[in-house]
């Protein structure tokens, strides 16, 4: 939450921003194409802007738009958004011990602003929650800086995409830059054999379960990979599990 002075004045805030900056062209390309796709699939400019500024979750936006345009019942649209976002529920379980010392509204604020890339970069940097108030504040400021640049890159690019929707052709496949960005972060996490295993298992599981509706293949793949890695750890007690980039 970049608007809190005690966070954006902390040196870790800049560090968080610096760690996102190499990713930001990828985030922007992805935001740009999401903006274009929103307008091309039938939303008005006003609706697309409202969605960008409030929903702030690309995959749930893209899943909801055809349903909104078709006039599906509201509960169906919201349930779809929930299912497409299910991976965030797993992320919130991981982030919980890092944030529980904060008041509720601040926890909700951090939760809202922490999307995939910020979650991954934050947990890559901090394996364990801070013990002292100073450490907790540093982690919070890092997360806020990370979230801020991620949010800014996404929002600006989405608005540009909405404005230029009729000029930017989707056939160019610029959105692939977003996938390359995630791929680069994925490689940065592959620091131990067990993590490589997790990555390989999740990739295969996500492909095999691709036919599941509502992107449920993603949560399915995370669950399979985590359970399998824990099982391997148990069978081979000497397996080094950690490894931080």
């Amino acid at each position, binding site marked *: 939450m970049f608007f809190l002075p005690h966070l954006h004045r902390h040196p870790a805030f800049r560090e968080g921003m610096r760690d996102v900056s190499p990713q930001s062209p990828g985030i922007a390309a992805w935001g740009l194409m999401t903006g274009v796709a929103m307008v091309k699939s039938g939303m008005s400019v006003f609706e697309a802007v409202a969605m960008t500024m409030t*929903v702030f979750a690309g995959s749930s936006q893209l899943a909801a738009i055809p349903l909104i345009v078709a006039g599906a019942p*509201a509960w169906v649209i919201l349930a779809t958004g929930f299912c497409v976002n299910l991976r965030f529920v797993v992320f919130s379980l991981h982030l919980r011990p890092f*944030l529980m010392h904060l008041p509720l509204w601040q926890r*909700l604020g951090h939760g809202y602003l922490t999307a995939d890339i910020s979650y991954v970069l934050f947990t890559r940097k901090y394996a364990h929650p801070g013990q002292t108030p100073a450490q907790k504040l540093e982690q919070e400021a890092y997360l806020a800086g990370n979230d801020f640049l991620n949010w800014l890159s996404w929002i600006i690019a989405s608005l540009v995409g909405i404005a230029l929707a009729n000029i930017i052709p989707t056939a160019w496949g610029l959105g692939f830059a977003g996938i*390359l960005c995630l*791929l*680069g972060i994925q490689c940065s996490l592959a620091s131990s054999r067990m*993590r490589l295993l997790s990555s390989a298992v999740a990739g295969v599981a996500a492909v095999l379960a691709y036919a599941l509706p509502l992107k449920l293949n993603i949560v399915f793949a995370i669950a399979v990979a985590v359970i399998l890695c824990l099982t391997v750890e148990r069978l081979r007690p000497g397996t080094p599990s950690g490894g931080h980039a």
Partner: protein
Amino acid sequence: MNGTDLWTLAVIVGLALVTVLTRSFFFMSNKPWHLPSWAQRGLQYAPIAALSAVVVPEIVMSQGQLIATWQDARLFAAAAGAATYFWRRDVLLTIVLGMAVYLPLHLGLGW
């Protein structure tokens, strides 16, 4: 869609609340509880699994099917991107060189 009606705006606000609900799911309640240590350990495998689950289908699938040809720009771009990362440890360069392989193959050869 003609104009913006209140229903659409209400649905958009609802989706924003869904974002808050899912991203804050496990830290909304104040009740103190601790995750069993095996689960806490398991979660360290979640970030790379989540990325892989999003990325791999975007590289090897098309219209819900596994691609049957090697003539797909995404395969070469992803290979170039991963090689770039392990060479220079730089995500920005991964994106740039990956796209430098992707765009000519995709736009030039139609792969």
